């Protein structure tokens, strides 16, 4: 029973892990001799990445908190200045380089809404500078980045929340809670459930356009800083401003744009926040080297047999490997059903604001966000590599596939590094 409980509740997880290698307890500032920050105190806020989703992400971060915008940053100075002026004219300063913003002592919370190739490096730097972070989805561009983010936020005891919130609704939904308990119990061996996400991944919308000639870099844009940790490429406008989603260098198509929204709540429901799939099977044509494109379906199978399937509906055949079905109490023996019923419900997930005030983990914390991002990255890698992949979720490496492993931690452009 203890084992079941340890898998079930956040409080138990935090308590258990506090003595283990993955300990994560956010100690209140006053414990360390620093001034206590009462829940009512005004916090200094900043937004890094001011185009597109930026303003909305910043507003989301401020929910439940009293935040004054002190700084806005974008590699395009026009966007930074526009946002600074719109929210706190004359007081909020605009930056082009996030490093200068993070050096400031008066900024407590940072919203990150850059293209995803910057999410991990800026999140890590923000935590190293002592800031709490709400970061847009997808959390990362590749898998090793996610582990580095997790380790950094564990190290510093900072709050991380990913910018997707579907899991909060699931955590209050009776049916989802029951499924969560069944899966978290560990009692369901050889699970036959197959959860399908059919459509909604914007495959064509966020497919890139290859072969666009290089263009003149706008004066207001620091293109080298935009490329940052990703390989440098000649500038062309579609690599920025939302259409960046269609390039492998910055995101990963509709899979990465929409996938974390769809699979993060599913991951919570089916208790997969601390693991990843072990077999990934794609049906996809060869990918273009620069731009994202078509695929039909990807199946991700976990060690317990549970499967997530994504079907694009925008190209190729339908998924036909197994019938779609959910988990239910009927999958368990009567004895095991009673054990699951006796389990306490998982504790409510904390919003970013609540987590900042209480100095606890947010509901969409770094490990959960990383594992959800892994679903997208593993699926995209199977699509790109065009073969079935076997993955070790503990080592976070592909098994017996050295070439595939090169995509898990691709070298970054200097001076950026994990």
């Amino acid at each position, binding site marked *: 029973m203890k084992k079941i409980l340890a898998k079930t509740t956040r409080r138990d997880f935090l308590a258990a892990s506090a003595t283990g290698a993955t300990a994560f307890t956010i100690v209140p500032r006053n414990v360390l001799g620093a001034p206590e920050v009462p829940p009512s105190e005004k916090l200094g806020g900043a937004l890094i990445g001011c185009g597109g989703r930026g303003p909305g992400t910043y507003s989301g971060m401020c929910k439940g908190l009293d935040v004054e915008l002190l700084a806005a940053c974008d590699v395009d100075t026009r966007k930074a200045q526009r946002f600074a002026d719109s929210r706190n004219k004359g007081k909020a300063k605009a930056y082009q380089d996030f490093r200068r913003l993070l050096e400031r002592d008066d900024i407590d919370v940072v919203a990150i809404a850059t293209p995803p190739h910057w999410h991990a490096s800026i999140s890590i730097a923000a935590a190293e500078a002592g800031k709490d972070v709400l970061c847009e989805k997808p959390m990362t561009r590749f898998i090793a980045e996610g582990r580095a983010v997790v380790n950094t936020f564990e190290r510093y005891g900072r709050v991380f929340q990913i910018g997707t919130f579907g899991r909060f609704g699931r955590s209050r939904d009776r049916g989802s809670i029951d499924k969560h308990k069944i899966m978290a119990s560990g009692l369901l061996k050889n699970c036959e459930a197959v959860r399908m996400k059919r459509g909604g991944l914007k495959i064509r919308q966020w497919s890139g356009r290859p072969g666009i000639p290089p263009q003149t870099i706008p004066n207001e844009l620091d293109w080298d800083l935009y490329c940052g940790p990703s390989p440098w490429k000649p500038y062309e406008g579609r690599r920025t401003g939302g259409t960046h989603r269609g390039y492998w260098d910055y995101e990963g198509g509709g899979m990465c744009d929409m996938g974390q929204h769809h699979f993060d709540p599913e991951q919570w429901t089916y208790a997969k926040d601390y693991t990843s799939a072990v077999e990934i099977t794609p049906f996809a044509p060869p990918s273009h080297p620069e731009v994202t494109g078509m695929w039909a379906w990807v199946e991700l199978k976990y060690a317990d047999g549970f499967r997530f399937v994504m079907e694009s509906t925008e190209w190729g055949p339908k998924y036909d490997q197994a019938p779609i079905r959910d988990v239910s109490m009927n999958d368990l023996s009567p004895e095991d059903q009673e054990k699951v019923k006796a389990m306490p419900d998982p504790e409510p997930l904390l919003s970013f604001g609540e987590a900042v005030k209480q100095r606890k983990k947010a509901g969409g914390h770094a490990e959960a966000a990383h594992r959800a991002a892994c679903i997208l990255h593993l699926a995209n890698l199977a699509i790109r*590599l065009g073969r079935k992949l076997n993955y070790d979720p503990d080592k976070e490496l592909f098994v017996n596939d050295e070439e595939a492993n090169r995509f898990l931690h691709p070298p970054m452009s200097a001076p950026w590094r994990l």
Partner: protein
Amino acid sequence: MSAKDIIQAFPTPASGGILSTIDKEACEKAVGQILDGGEKTLRELADLLVEPGKGNDIQARHALHATAIRVGGPNKAKQRKAFAKALAGTLADDRPKAVKGFILRQLQICAGDEQADAIASFLTDGDEHLYEYSAQALEAIGPSTTDHFRKAYPKAKGAPRLTVLQGLGFLRDEKSVKVFRSASKEKDLEIRLAGLWSLVRIASTEDVQLLLDTAAKEEGWGRIKATGYCLQLAEALASAGKKKEAAKLYQNLKKSRTSNNESHVRLACDRGLAKLK
């Protein structure tokens, strides 16, 4: 069949400029034809690549990339080696540097030790970011390529120098420890930080004091990153059972980071020290 004919299996942009009309079977068959054609077909294919903005090579790039990808994976070593050898051979041809950059990026996917010489010849080439693509391909191949980085470092200037230094760190080259220590004392902040980061990846107890001293002198961004490297070194040493040295790092940082804005560093130290017990 010529490469020009083979690549017709790959799509050209359809409505909206995207590759939505792709035929999987035809593309897979074309990959097989490229491999069957050997070095001759591959060189023809490389000849179809052009500089960005100088013509349409969408199908050629797609076909070459698809082949580089599909020679990888279990039980394909012989095929991969033959393809990578032939592809690396095209780097010696008279081609635009931007095209060579693309070829280097495909070698990052499929090359092995045998191609390191050809790839490393671009490590100090500042044109078209060839140094970057070269370094990243070598890093993907792995630690067997460290000799190339060591030879290139004294010759590299500007951006290539930082990239080569970082490559040595990425590959955890223990023979470059003196280079890393020296770099950590240079004027350029990014060189200093790359030196410190590289030392952290080596994780020697001999560098504990150097990291502490250097981090203490840094300000702003440099202090944020260098302090982070000290904490990472402490974790690495603790994992290796060198608890005394790890504790030294934590205790020093805890005592020296006294301001309110570095309370998170003290917290990290407390957490680190607790784990050592």
